[in-house]
């Protein structure tokens, strides 16, 4: 064993809060960096065909080798200007409607869908509410549930609540090793249930939001490894690892029955989540 490996073996396992910080590392690759880095071709497509083009949702036609697919992802941005322009990856209703439109295109053209999830949540704003943030996310869930083409979702950083789920009703859900996926941010949970936002580390542990937790809870189907120190330390390697995961998983999904049988299987998969078992229920 090398010196570093010995040292790593002795290091305490990261806490949930450590993982939250890693998942939010601004050095992690963005959806655009994944799209441009892992794809041999990426044709970006804009707009929701209603009123806007939300820069917080990146979408387009993509190709890796001979595999063609529709790519949709939250775009957090790399520079300060870009981060502000795309609201740090927090999508507006226009973004979810753009995603819907691209997914329907995928279904029509017989392409699988790959989504890259990385958002603190859907954007909380005046226009977002006026244009129906709730309706837009709900509609996305309905569209994805019924989409007759395979869907692969990879949580690459933060899987923040409804804003994440809005593009993640998938046949396979993968988590990057240090990604998180949660019903609410640890800060939000702490301020409501502990009445103290500073208790976020406790809330993070209680929420069971790490990749391992998600696999144990059968919400995620697998973990994509990250380079040592996290994707933010070595973005190029992280992009290559995600590329491999996309290729392998799209190949596996292509071998499975499609059409309504695929939709039925997807329904069964989500139906099994949190399935009622009287032996595990609380005693009343």
């Amino acid at each position, binding site marked *: 064993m090398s010196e570093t490996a010995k040292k790593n073996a002795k290091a305490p396992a990261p806490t949930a809060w450590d993982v939250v910080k890693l998942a939010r590392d601004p050095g992690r690759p963005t959806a655009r960096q994944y799209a441009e880095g892992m794809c041999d071709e990426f044709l970006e497509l804009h707009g929701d065909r209603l009123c806007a083009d939300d820069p917080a949702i990146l979408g387009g036609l993509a190709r890796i080798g001979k595999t063609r697919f529709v790519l949709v992802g939250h775009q957090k941005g790399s520079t300060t200007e870009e981060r502000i322009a795309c609201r740090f990856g927090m999508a507006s209703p226009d973004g979810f409607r753009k995603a819907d439109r691209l997914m329907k295109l995928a279904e029509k053209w017989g392409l699988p869908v790959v989504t890259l999830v990385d958002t603190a949540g859907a954007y909380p704003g005046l226009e977002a509410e006026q244009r129906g943030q*709730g309706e837009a996310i709900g509609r996305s869930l309905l569209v994805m549930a019924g989409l007759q083409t395979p869907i692969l979702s990879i949580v690459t950083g933060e899987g923040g609540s*409804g804003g994440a789920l809005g593009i993640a009703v998938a046949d396979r859900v993968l988590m990057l090793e240090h990604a998180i996926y949660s019903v609410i941010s640890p800060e939000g949970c702490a301020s409501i249930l502990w009445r103290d936002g500073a208790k976020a580390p406790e809330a993070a542990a209680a929420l069971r939001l790490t990749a391992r937790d998600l696999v144990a809870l059968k919400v995620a189907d697998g973990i994509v490894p990250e380079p040592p120190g996290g994707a933010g330390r070595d973005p190029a390697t992280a992009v290559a690892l995600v590329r491999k995961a996309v290729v392998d998983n799209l190949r596996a999904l292509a071998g499975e029955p499609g059409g309504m049988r695929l939709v039925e299987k997807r329904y069964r998969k*989500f139906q099994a989540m*949190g*399935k009622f078992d009287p032996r595990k229920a609380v*005693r009343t």
Partner: protein
Amino acid sequence: MAWFTKKEEAPQELLPDIWHVCSKCNAHVFKDSWENNLKVCPKCGHHDRLSARERIALLVDPGTFREYGQEIVPTDHLGFADAKGPYAAKAAGAVKKLGISEAVVTGSGDVEGVRVVFAVMDFAFLGGSLSSGAGEKIDRAIQHAIDFNRTFVMVSASGGARMHEGILSLMQMAKTCASLQRLQEAGLPYVSILTDPTTGGVSASYALIGDVNVAEPGALIGFAGRRVIETTIKQKLPDDFQTAEYLRDHGFVDAIVERKDLRHYLATLLAYRQK
């Protein structure tokens, strides 16, 4: 005893039980008349919250409601505990106190003679939060609607997904919408009734995607909380922001119907189903 040494008597409570104080206009109204008025303030028309049982009594013909899934109670999937203690105890307490098994009551019942399947949320049960048990009850109710070829009526009253069940609560948004997708595939109508409040994850799943969305006057309906939005955009929001009327004016609610008219409105709507 001299009057100045006489101990002051505690002021007698003025029979507080006979009054209801409107939480909106502060009017004092006799509790009986307020309750007879379906918990709607006779002065300002404020629609107060109803329990799931009260809602069912309001909408369903007497004696026709058959409840489903009463055995489905909450499950502490995560072993969750917060500052106030374990979730399991909190959930068990809600079941005991309210006499319903989860934050939603489901079943079939007639509305002016037409049988439909209902899922009615109860805000008093942990804020009407969507949990895996609630999601399962809704999923099963929708399956009943499909199996028996009935219209599905959802009555929402919720603060959103239940944090105590973590990611599994979030997944119930996908689970219920996947059920609704099957209902749609089966060509069956879906009527969504939005009551105060319908927010967070419930607004972002089944509540706003009805074939017809009906809301009670003044109901709070929205995705993000007012304070969160004000902090994010650093400006004051209009007073009517996220009310039922605001959503109607922006195209997300079809009609606002007063509580006293709701049953008949629903029956009138159901009569349009020709398939």
